[in-house]
């Protein structure tokens, strides 16, 4: 109950800031443009998924960290009240992550609705984009919180780490994977490769998108390990499971840090 009250204040604060509305508008514009120019085929959904994979981790992490820094006084004020710290944490987290998820869902969902793409394209790909977007939002806001709590007194460090983590997970990590593949290409590296991909949440989300939109290409791969992994429900369920672990881990660490923190 108290969590909800905190949530409510957070929401009011966020919407007063207009930032969140702008964030939703970006998705609205992107999705609208993609559908308008990409046609109602799978191409539009794929482009939206691509933008989502790029933008959500960045915004989620930066905004998560930033918000915790900004609402420091508010948090300290609330801590003076007879409040459970766990309750307070979930109030704060929900107050940021849920509006972000909502902005994404509305921004992407509305163009799909009024363009009618929701009826014409397979329901699985629509659901995939929406669910994956929401999971990624929660995941990366959680990561942002974790970083902010770990470097609570040094904003520059916290935000810097958030930015670098994004750069690492989104680009550099794939570079390392590519390098590994090129270097150890002569060895049976399929299983380690799959494991490597499952470690990075952005890659995980990307592979889930691939499983939906590029199966025909993935099935063209000669290795048995890949085709068995990608060709069955196994791939989807393993990817979903790993994403859930990734969702839980930063939040669990954050709660730990938040409970012990001396503000």
């Amino acid at each position, binding site marked *: 109950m108290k969590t909800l009250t905190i949530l409510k204040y957070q929401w009011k604060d966020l919407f007063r800031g207009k930032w969140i509305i702008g964030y939703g508008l970006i998705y609205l514009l992107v999705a609208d443009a993609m559908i308008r120019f990409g046609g109602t085929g799978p191409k539009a959904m794929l482009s939206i998924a691509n933008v989502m994979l790029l933008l959500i981790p960045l915004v989620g992490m930066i905004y998560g960290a930033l918000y915790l820094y900004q609402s420091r006084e508010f948090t300290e004020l609330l801590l003076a009240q007879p409040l459970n710290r766990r309750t307070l944490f979930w109030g704060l987290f929900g107050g940021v992550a849920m509006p972000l998820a909502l902005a994404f869902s509305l921004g992407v969902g509305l163009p799909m609705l009024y363009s009618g793409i929701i009826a014409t394209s397979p329901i699985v790909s629509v659901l995939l984009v929406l669910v994956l977007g929401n999971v990624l939002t929660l995941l990366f806001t959680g990561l942002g919180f974790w970083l902010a709590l770990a470097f609570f007194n040094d904003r520059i460090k916290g935000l810097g780490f958030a930015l670098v983590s994004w750069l690492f997970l989104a*680009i550099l990590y794939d*570079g390392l994977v590519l390098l590994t593949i*090129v270097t150890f290409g002569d060895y049976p590296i399929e299983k380690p490769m799959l494991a490597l991909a499952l470690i990075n949440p952005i890659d995980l989300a*990307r592979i889930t998108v*691939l499983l939906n939109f590029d199966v025909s*290409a993935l*099935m*063209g*791969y000669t290795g048995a390990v*890949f085709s068995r992994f990608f060709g069955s429900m196994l791939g989807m369920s393993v990817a979903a499971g790993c994403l859930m672990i990734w969702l839980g881990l930063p939040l669990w660490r954050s709660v730990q840090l938040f409970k012990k923190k001396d503000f």
Partner: protein
Amino acid sequence: MRAFLNIAALILWMVSQVQLVSARQLTVAPNGPVSSVKEGIALASSGDTLVLKEGHYDEYDITVDKPLTIIGEGQVVIDGNRKGFVLVITADDVTVKNIEVRHASTSFMEDYAGILVENTNNTVIENVTLTDNFFGIYLAKSSNALIKDNHITASGGRETSSGNGIHLWYSKDIDIQGNYVEGHRDGLYFEFVEGATISGNVSEHNIRYGIHFMYSDNCRYEGNTFRDNGGGVAVMYTQNVEIINNRFEDNWGSSAYGMLLKEINRSQIEGNEFVNNSVGLYIEATSRNSIKKNSFRQNGWAIKLMANSTDNRFTENNFIANSFEISTNSRQNYNAFDNNYWSQYEGYDLDKDGIGDVPHRPVRLFSIIVEKHPPSLLLLRSLLIDILDAAEKFMPVLTPETLIDSQPKMTKIL
């Protein structure tokens, strides 16, 4: 006596004339006076019509050695019980209609078939259902046959224990229309065939190829659908084929191609749809063909073009939402691309003439990386890969410099 002989001769002559003019009709029924097909054929003479009444006939190696018309009435099943061939046609002008042929024998030595047609002319096989035969319809050294509206299914598990649906060998001027083939080794198989027309057939869920086509010049296939076959469709070692308005879809696998072209020359490939295949069109050692007005949608690779193919011309094709548009194995290219629509095209059209102002490079750097290091396929749609691709597009170092469409269309070609 002499007069009597004369009259007898006259009568005999007249009878024979009557027979020539109006053929007799013989009826075979499971519980009638003539109860087996073999008996019926033995009793019939050339040009007769054999009507099979509804029922189940357990017979095999039925040889049709005179021009007959064999027509089934109702549910007529001839069951070979896996003992040999079922129907063997060795005479000209034989017509088989409206029956079902089941269970030809399976063998590693002999090509047992539901219907074997050998050394004949003018055979018609129409509206026949072939169920669970080793080979379905097998034509050897025959010409002018019509194979129409047959339904050919089998459930062979492996390549070795399964034969082809419609198998043609050394035949000429064959018309194959509106058949349905499923679950065989190759749906349709052509070797040394001349001038065949294959139209409106559906060949799906076969173990190897939907159609396997070799050394068969001057053939035409039109309006067929090939779906979910183990290896897709293979067309090899042939000149002057017309492949028009066919559909190739859902062929998934590491060696599955919508259509594989190997050593095909001077042929037309027009108006086909390649949808949802691992590789839409695989081209190897193939020259001087026109590939025009085809649609490639949602394939892993729309076209894999091997560098030993030359002088092919790709015009007015649609490439829509494929993971890779074209991949190749060399920096050399001797083929021409123009006026295609590429959904991955990122250029602009300032003069509004419907043609993009900058050329399109359909070979991505990433497709070359994947060709060399297959596991890197896992990085598809990664931001890093997009950045690498963009860099390569500005300054091609690894991708073939001449494989470009200098006049890419801005909108889909209808």
